[in-house]
């Protein structure tokens, strides 16, 4: 059983950190995991993404063309990665940063107003955790509690005052249920 996740957005949205949280949780659950960032000129001001592969076997490729799930944190990522999600896979979209609906009807998708939710929690840096919560709530491969535990264990102590907000963001996100867009009948 292998789960592949791409998290993509602008640099500064916490894309790489969200992936690392997932990787720590998978490691703590005794699974094989790889985390690889896009690196290079595209990091400067453009889009950032990371790929996380979680498996019960030794992992082959850490890079994936058609992932099981994608978190798109902004419009360029939504446009790029909607096409790439594996059929039957999951697409989590930051509704606060896009101006259209999901088009594919062979995948499950969730539109989450993650910026708004993060601001309600009182910390807009929590956008990534809201979206990660939505992913976890709809993939059933890592329990939310395991991710919360890993955050507590691996987040440097000086940032521990952020743990309650992280937990709330994950839980609020996980309440969103994925739907399949109805095919257009002509």
């Amino acid at each position: 059983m292998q789960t592949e996740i791409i998290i993509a957005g602008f640099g500064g949205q916490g894309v790489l950190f969200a992936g690392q949280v997932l990787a720590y949780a998978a490691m703590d659950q005794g699974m094989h995991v790889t985390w690889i960032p896009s690196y290079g000129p595209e990091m400067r001001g453009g889009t950032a993404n990371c790929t996380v592969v979680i498996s019960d076997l030794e992992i082959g490729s850490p890079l994936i063309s058609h992932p099981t799930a994608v978190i798109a944190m902004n419009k360029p990522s939504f446009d790029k990665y909607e096409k790439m999600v594996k059929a039957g896979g999951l697409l989590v979209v930051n509704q606060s940063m896009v101006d259209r609906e999901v088009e594919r009807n062979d995948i499950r998708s969730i539109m989450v107003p993650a910026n708004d939710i993060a601001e309600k929690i009182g910390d807009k840096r929590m956008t990534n955790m809201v979206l990660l919560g939505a992913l976890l709530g709809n993939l059933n491969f890592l329990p939310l509690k395991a991710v919360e535990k890993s955050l507590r264990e691996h987040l440097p102590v000086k940032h521990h005052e952020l743990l309650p907000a992280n937990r709330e963001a994950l839980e609020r996100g996980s309440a969103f249920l994925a739907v399949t867009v109805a095919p257009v009948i002509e």
Partner: protein
Amino acid sequence: MAKELLKGNVAIAEAAIRAGMNAYFGYPITPQTELLEWLAKRMPELGRAFVQAESELGAVNMVYGAACTGARVLSSSSSPGVSLMLEGLSYIAGTEVPAVLVDIMRGGPGLGNIAPAQADYNQIVHGGGHGDYHPIVLAPANIQEAIDLTYGAFDLAEKYRSLVIILADGSLGQLMEPAVLPEMLPVIMRQPEWATYGAAGREKRILSSINLEPREQEAFNLHLEKRWQEIKKAEVRYMEYYLEDARYAVVSFGTSGRISLSAIRAARAKGIPVGLFRPITLAPFPEQELYELSQRMDGLLVVEMNSGQMLEDVIKITRNSIPVEFYGRMGGMVPMPEEIEAEIDRLVNQPHSPNGHPRDRWLDRFSLDN
């Protein structure tokens, strides 16, 4: 020991520290900079030597000098930086002092780019610097292997008074995986019987790579060749996956090797009996093992992130006795599992053309659309 989530560059740096490395000399270059960055912080903390040299030329010659004293010494760089070091590597080999170098390869030739590549295979495995010498070349495909190979590299270098080069690519440098770090060895200054660390109370020793008497130089060359024969007998390492029942094998090292593993699993799910042969030591290459494997296979596919550099070695080793095909990506592009799976399908299902070179056939069908 508990597993930690470690980035390749950092894992290699920390493994070298734990192996009791005395000194590091380097110059920053992407995609290996985190390695130097980690050591810049850790080495002074531990009271050990860290020098960011003025250039790669400076760094490699500092390595040369430190190695002459018997110190455990490391440098690291990426492709264009390693090119600058080649003169120094030849001098190190010609003086027979142990040293370890890490090359985190990137796209080239020239300044190229900072994306992952394996195009330094020929430069590193088949020499690069002038003169007859053979570095030991180790190619990790995952973080644990990178740690274990780095940790053992100093012992290997000292045992054979040899250069050991860890050859990895930018994606392994940037990749994070859970891995276990080895125990911290005490740092000691070794005093081998050949080293120059001050001659108070004993005969002076001279270390040099110059020998103006060809007959003596030839005797030294012969000594290096005999020692290489010993290394070939004792130090070959490789990994095999799904080969017990296989009729086809992919031959691939490092990152392209692990990506091939995904393609092989997908092909096996369709019923194709294919496995993976992944050399860990590129020098000494697992020649006998690959030859014997080829004798029970119906075909081989060589996959690399270059234009077929290891391919030439595979052809030489298998002596044209079975069909060999090639697939490569160049310039910092990484092959995706689907591309390799399509090549496995082609090898198995399409009649093999005995004409021409596998590289020519690959170039004929190569498309930049992938």
